[in-house]
């Protein structure tokens, strides 16, 4: 994989604090140590039920972009190693006018793992996701009940801009701004700093974000190119770079690959597995294989209810609820 830590040319960064005088998230929880446990690697063959494979065949998990992945790196699941809880949903309900789109959901989102949200169309996945950084507030008819906490602080008590800086979002349709590649990634860095930082201060951070998003090698020659001239997959990775440039703590992704070809999807999936080390990630997907490939935990929603929540192996391998079985069975059976 291109983006392995040890292969990545390291960029010398001035501390982010230098760039952002007003860093909203003063103290951040340190990353948990992610040792490379000998993992139970699952292999997935698209038209077979998932099985737990032997550690001898790890490369099936890592969707490497070219080179064969090495065991013990991004291609490996951190199963059995739950990080600290970052976000907690208590009896969360969301209504559009009087129609409930999300019904009393309890859920926890942990550092260092990927939570995959699955469920049929219209079951409230996007609504749930957008509630996590209060984007639903842009919809006049939306109303929320229940509590969402970020590090034990109710998100309603946080400044909404602060919340959205800590809980970033990547949308279904790539939405790069009509600016250069550089300006896209620099956008949040610039907007979030008090005094307008110069290009020299920002450049290393832009470099770093593009590198982590796995886009650097493709665009490094011309960062002034219009972002809208990139391919769809590149645009989506640019949006990821833009979202992670300011080092958020939680990354929300709403069907990030639905507009992309299999190759770009593969690249983004391996990127997710890589980013998981530093972030809590919630991903909505219609692609059950994808949920299985990237998800540590999976939440299955149906008509606004959270029907089942558990480790990916459990939800796909031995679903408890009949509804889950019906839904998941269709994909793997």
């Amino acid at each position, binding site marked *: 994989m291109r983006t392995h830590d040890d292969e990545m040319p390291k960029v010398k960064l001035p501390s982010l604090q230098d760039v952002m005088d007003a860093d*909203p998230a003063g103290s951040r929880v340190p990353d948990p140590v992610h040792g490379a446990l000998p993992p139970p690697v699952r292999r997935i063959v698209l038209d077979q039920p998932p099985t737990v494979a032997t550690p001898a065949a790890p490369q099936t998990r890592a969707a490497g972009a070219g080179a064969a992945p090495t065991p013990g790196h991004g291609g490996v699941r951190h199963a059995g190693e739950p990080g600290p809880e970052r976000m907690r949903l208590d009896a969360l309900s969301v209504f559009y006018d009087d129609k409930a789109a999300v019904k009393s959901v309890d859920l926890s989102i942990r550092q260092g793992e990927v939570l995959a949200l699955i469920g049929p169309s219209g079951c409230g996945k996007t609504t749930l996701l957008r509630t996590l*950084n209060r*984007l639903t507030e*842009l919809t*006049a008819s939306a109303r929320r009940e229940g509590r969402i906490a970020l590090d034990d602080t109710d998100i309603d008590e946080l400044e*909404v*801009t*602060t*919340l*959205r*800086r*800590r809980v*970033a*979002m990547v*949308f279904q*349709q790539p*939405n*790069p*701004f*009509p*600016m*250069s590649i550089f300006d896209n990634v620099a*956008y*949040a860095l610039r*907007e*979030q700093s008090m005094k307008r930082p110069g290009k020299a201060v920002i450049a290393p951070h832009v470099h770093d974000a593009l590198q982590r998003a796995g886009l650097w090698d493709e665009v490094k020659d011309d960062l002034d190119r*219009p*972002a*809208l*001239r990139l391919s769809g997959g590149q645009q989506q990775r640019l*949006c990821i770079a*833009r*979202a992670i440039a*300011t080092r958020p703590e939680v990354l929300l992704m709403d069907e990030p690959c639905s507009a992309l070809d299999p190759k770009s999807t593969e690249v983004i999936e391996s990127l997710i597995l890589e980013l998981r080390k530093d972030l809590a990630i919630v991903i909505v997907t219609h692609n059950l294989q994808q949920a299985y490939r990237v998800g540590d935990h999976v939440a299955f929603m149906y008509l606004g209810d959270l029907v089942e929540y558990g480790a990916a192996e459990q939800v796909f391998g031995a679903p408890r609820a009949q509804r889950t079985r019906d839904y998941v069975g269709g994909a793997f059976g």
Partner: protein
Amino acid sequence: MFDRFRAPWSDRRAERVLGALASLVLVIIALMVIFVAIKAWPTLRHNSVVGWFGFGDEVDVQIANQVNGTSGTGGDAFKLNAGPLIYATILTTALAVVIGLAFALFSAIFIVEFAPPRLRRIIVPVVRLLAAVPSVIYGLIGILVLAPFVNDHVISDSRKRSVEYVVQLSGTSLLVATVILTVMITPIMIAIVTDALYSVPKGWKEGAVALGVNRWRAMWTVSIRAARPAIIAAAVLATARALGEGIMLSMVSGGRGFSPNPLDGITVLFEPLRPLAATIVENVESLNAPAVRSSVYAFALLLLFSSLMLSLGGYLAKQPMKKYGIRV
């Protein structure tokens, strides 16, 4: 009978027809400019171009002499220094466009981003209605309501006395002209900018807001940026309307070829003036006099040239924006 077997128009042929039509329009415009320029030439030559654009004796006296075909100062019936009229045109247009554009930007942002939906449903059609009101009606309101009000309640007697040996203040003034002109050109700008802001892809706005930028900044850094071509187009259109507004300005501007003097302080606002287009309107009765005719053609030439330059300037200003994928 065999119509459906007829070969469809090829794109090439359509292209050629459209190209010919477009060229025809260009030719007509060019002929018009040349015609007006030829007609304007006598007065421009007589006064020299620099002199014509400059300031001299009272311009109204000069025009009166042209109408009578005589001259008070020695048979110079073509004498004209149009400076005050040009100055009045620039002053009213610039003030109205700058004030109107600022107002239009903020109103459009308010309408699109912050207005409660119910209010929005009322404002938008009202703005469109205002944009369609004939300018002469604004002029009527100006001369029947605003000018008397300014005369009676805003300009103090001592202020009138302070300049009585230079000019008489009677309500119709730079202030009233600018206000009415601004009111006339702002609705169309609001409508254009509002439409442009609505057509900014929602994903861009949401993307910015999701990065922890407040709605106001998101509007400013993303939506307004993306809407710049429309903002330029709105400003160009509004400027052209303001430049060409004759009747309304002749009603409310005071109708005097006077140059309001900024050194008079606040009083400058209450001094009368008369822009080019209004001057044309006020002299239609005297077009038999050759000197007047040539002068009026020269005014027209200047206005024509300005609006051509305006369109060209707007076009050029929009070009760099294409680069990053903004629709222009």
